[in-house]
Structure formats: structure tokens, C-alpha cells
């Protein structure tokens, strides 16, 4: 593993964003795993979801190394085998894990951007990733892989840079958010913005909107699980007590779990980044942005091989949304595999260790390799 940064769009050559605003310089934090082969044909780009980072895997099994967010999939001998493939993962534009985002210092003012940071889109994130891939002198990626909001980036890659990729793996993702998905994101954003510490996004010198961000994370977590997985994991079990407290402590295990998740999250994540990234995900609309309203048209320039995977219990991005992606590929005569994995784990299933997803990805990538 190598942790690196790449900076581009130095003024005056700032990057033009989809919103019309310009931004620069832009730094992208990235990590690479494995070795790029001589003809550069084994590079796999992994796109992380809402709150991920470049650290997709622990490095080569070094003891004491920080776990990666997708250790179940990426590593020596795993589904995405780092002994075979050169794996790249970068923190998204607008994030807070080393790449330029609202918590970064604006070189023009010497202060954090806060809300003066321009709105970025999934397409802007992908353009920044492409700049990184060019910088790494990779002409054609063997595969672009991602789940959830990471899958949106993969979809954008497919239509924006069809010549630069051989294959695409789309996990638990969608071409656009449903009203329900936007609604959950909006409640999460409102929780942050209602926290007095948020202070219009200008909180970097003082106390942070931790309470609001924690609530936002709690809402998110509910949407990543399923009724079944919550019933199985928590049911109505009480936390370290045999009866109700008759006050508002965390009586139920599920309450305690959500509070813990919220608390853990604020230590590592910036509230403004949460606002920006959820907004980008809500704005994403592949049909509208690339197909004049038609999904089939959006993929008309694509030549990639596709693997699409959905989960039966994912109600945030339900299977019918993956099927819509597959239908667009069928209309364009594109080679695709699609599997709906039976799981009770909800949207988060793609991130969790599972004996079924790894062999699918392994077999698919082997076929894509020249």
C-alpha cells in the first residue's frame, strides 16, 4: 500500500465544475495496492461510497495495519486479488479524508472553505478520478468497481469515459435516487444544519456540529440495514438492563447501537462533507445528465462488460433499480451479468464479508483480463 496525494487544477487552470463554478488547486488522496503490469492492463479503480476513503484495504497483511473499508474483497487472493491487479482507490472530491473538500483550506483566504466550497457532482468526482488515472499514466482501466454512491461513480465513468475502461462492476446502486432516498438524505442534512454549532458551515475554529452529524449517521444506518437484520441483531432486546429505565436513556439495544455508530462517526467525518456528498448523490441522474431522459441512450457509447449485483433486502436501492440498468445494457447489446443475491443484510450487504460476492467478482475480472 502506498498513501499518496496528487494535486492538479492549479490556478489559473482551475477545474470547471458542473455547476459552472471553478475550483483549484485540487488535491486527491489515493492509495494503490499491488503492481501495475508492463502494459498497464491490470489496473482496477475502486470507487468508495458516501463516507469511505482511499484506504480500501489493509496493506499486504502487515500486522497492526489499519483495516481497510473493503478488506473482505480487496487483498492478496481475494475477490479483487492485489497479487494480480493493481488496485487504485482515491478519496472523492468534496470528501474529508485527504482530498479537497469543504474542510480544506482555501488558498485564497487561508481559511477553511466551509460553505464557500462549490457544490460538486458525481461527474466532478469522476473527472477528478480521471485526472488521477491520467497522472498514473494508465490508459485503460481493466475495471471500475463501486457500490452504492461508489456505483454512481462507476456509472458516470461508463458514459463519460467509455474508451478508458474494459469493464464495470456495479453493486447495490442506482441510476438516480428515488424520492424516498432523497428524503432520508434531506432529514440527515437538516439534522446537521439544525445543530447550532453548524453555524452556517463555519465551525472549523470552534465546537463542531457533532450532535447533528451523529443523528445524520443514525438515519443513514437505518437505511443501510433491513427490518429483518435489525430484528435478528437487536429485536426488542434491552441494553445492559432487565427493565425500562422510564426515562430517555438508550434502553433498547438498537438505540444504543445507533448512538454508538453516531458517536464513532463524528470522530472521523466532517459535517459539511456529509452535506456536499449527499447532495451530489441526490443530484445524480444518469438518464437526465447523459441520456436526455433515456437510460438506453445514456449507455449508447459504452463498450464495457458489466457485472451488476443487487440484494433482495436492499430497500434503499431496490433490485428494480439495478434491473433498469441491466435493461439499458440489453437495449445496447452490451455484455452483462446480473445477479440478485438473496440476503437479509440490507443495502450494506455488499460491504460485509460474504462467500457469494467474491467469486462473482473474481470470475468476472478474470474474464475481463486480456
Amino acid at each position, binding site marked *: 500500500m502506498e498513501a499518496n496525494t496528487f494535486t492538479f487544477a492549479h490556478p489559473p487552470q482551475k477545474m470547471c465544475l458542473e455547476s459552472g463554478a471553478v475550483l483549484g488547486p485540487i488535491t486527491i488522496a489515493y492509495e494503490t495496492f499491488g503492481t501495475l503490469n508492463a502494459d498497464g492492463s491490470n489496473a482496477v479503480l475502486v470507487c468508495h461510497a458516501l463516507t469511505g476513503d482511499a484506504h480500501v484495504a489493509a496493506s499486504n497483511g502487515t500486522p497492526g495495519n489499519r483495516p481497510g473499508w473493503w478488506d473482505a474483497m480487496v487483498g492478496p487472493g481475494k475477490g479483487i486479488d492485489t497479487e494480480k491487479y493493481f488496485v487504485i482507490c482515491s478519496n472523492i472530491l468534496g470528501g474529508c479524508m485527504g482530498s479537497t473538500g469543504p474542510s480544506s483550506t482555501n488558498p485564497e483566504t487561508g481559511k477553511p472553505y466551509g460553505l464557500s466550497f462549490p457544490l460538486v457532482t458525481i461527474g466532478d468526482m469522476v473527472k477528478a478520478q480521471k485526472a488521477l488515472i491520467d497522472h498514473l499514466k494508465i490508459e485503460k482501466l481493466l475495471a471500475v468497481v463501486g457500490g452504492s454512491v461508489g456505483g454512481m461513480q462507476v456509472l458516470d465513468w461508463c458514459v463519460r469515459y467509455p474508451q478508458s475502461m474494459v469493464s464495470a462492476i456495479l453493486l447495490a446502486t442506482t441510476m438516480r435516487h428515488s424520492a424516498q432516498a432523497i428524503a432520508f438524505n434531506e432529514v440527515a442534512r437538516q439534522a446537521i444544519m439544525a445543530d447550532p454549532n453548524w453555524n452556517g458551515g463555519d465551525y472549523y475554529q470552534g465546537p463542531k456540529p457533532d450532535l447533528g452529524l451523529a443523528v445524520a449517521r443514525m438515519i443513514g444506518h437505518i437505511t443501510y440495514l433491513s427490518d429483518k437484520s435489525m430484528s435478528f441483531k437487536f429485536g426488542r432486546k434491552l441494553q445492559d438492563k432487565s427493565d425500562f429505565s422510564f426515562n430517555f436513556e438508550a434502553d433498547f439495544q438498537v438505540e444504543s447501537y445507533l448512538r454508538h455508530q453516531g458517536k464513532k462517526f463524528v470522530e472521523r467525518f466532517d459535517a459539511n462533507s456529509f452535506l456536499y456528498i449527499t447532495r451530489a448523490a441526490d443530484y445524480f441522474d444518469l438518464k437526465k445528465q447523459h441520456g436526455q431522459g433515456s437510460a438506453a441512450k445514456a449507455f449508447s457509447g459504452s463498450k464495457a*462488460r458489466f*457485472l451488476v449485483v443487487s440484494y433482495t433486502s436492499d430497500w434503499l436501492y431496490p433490485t428494480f433499480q439495478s*434491473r433498469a440498468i*441491466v*435493461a439499458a445494457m*440489453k*437495449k445496447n*447489446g452490451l*455484455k*452483462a*451479468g*446480473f*445477479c*440478485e*443475491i*438473496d440476503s437479509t443484510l440490507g443495502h450494506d450487504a455488499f460491504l460485509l464479508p460474504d462467500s*457469494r460476492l467474491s*467469486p*462473482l467478482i*473474481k*470470475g*468476472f475480472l*478474470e*474474464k475481463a483480463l486480456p
Partner: protein
Amino acid sequence: MITLQKPLRPDLAVIANWVEPGAKVLDLGCGQGRLLHHLAQHKQVDGTGIEIAEAKVARCIEEGLAVLQGDISKEVLDYPDNAFDFVILSQTLQQVYDPAGMIREMLRIGKRGIVSLPNFGYWAVRLQLLATGRAPVTKHLPYQWHNTPNIRVMTIKDFRLFSQEAGFLILRESFLLSGNKGLTGRTIRFLPNLRATSGVFLITGSQKNPAT
């Protein structure tokens, strides 16, 4: 994958023989991808499969095949006209709710179709019904009336007549008497509706030029 070492099921061997090298093929109800794998290896076929069972789909994808999970009756609707050179439906028509609609879709999205089906007119089936007065259970059709997936009971003769009603042409036929649990088969030419356990048909739409 051990199953790939076994010989092809006899009707699949006939189908594989009829498919032209390099053709674009859609296999409806492809199972674990036995035929698609064979066609890719031996005929450089650009193949796609549709299968409803997750475990079978997963097996196909692990083998590098392009297989989509879904119900064949619905999945065929997305494809544009003439998207494939061959659309294959092996040993599945008897399980389809709307056979005429299925064949119409097959011949819309494919230039030609290949259908293989079990022959309920086979003499042992007829004899069993006559002798026992019960719904026949044979080694080729091993199900009881209440657990069979075969919701349509048809014979080779029925399928020929059906081609006229449903408006498609049969370009080629092959009839098989299978033995050894369906793993081997020999071709039947004389009285196939009585002596064959299955039939394989190459079909095309009556509006289509069979040469294209």
C-alpha cells in the same frame, strides 16, 4: 468445474451442432451455463444467458459467462428486434405460461430460434396412462402431477401443428431417444412421435427470410 467435463446432454449437442460459429446467441433458462460454455469454447459464440435461480446464475458468472438473473418471459422484452442470431429454449417450453407469446418474442429478438421439448407422445408414456389410468411418471418425465414444473403437456405432433397456428416455420427437426438418465441419446427417424423422448426444432418467423 467438474460438470463441464461430462458430455453435453443429447438435445444440447444437437443445438450446439446447429449454431453457426461466431453467432450471437441467447440461451433462455441456461442453468449452470453448460451449453453457453460449450458454444464459447468450441464455436467462438458470443453468448448471453438468462436464468432464474441465483445459485446457477452465480455459477455462470464465476465461469466468466454473461448471464442475467430473471424470469425469461419478462427478460426477453427488453431486447431490440433481431438482437441475436439464435435464441435457444431447451427443455423449457413445457414450463412457460404463454408458449405462443414466448416463441413470438424469441423470433422477434432472434433471427432464428431453437426449441427442444419432451415428447409426451412417447409410447411408454401413452402405455402407462392406458394401463394404469394415472398420470404417467417415467424416467424422462419423473414428476408426479402435483409437483411437476411441466405445466404444458405436448407431443412432437402438437408442436408441428402449433407452428401453423402460432405462425412460425420449422426449418429443421431432430428427434432423440435418450437413455442412461438422459446423458446419452440416439437419433430417431421413423415414427418419432411414438419412439422419441424429445424433439429439437430450428424455427424462424414466417415473415422472416430463413437465409438471413
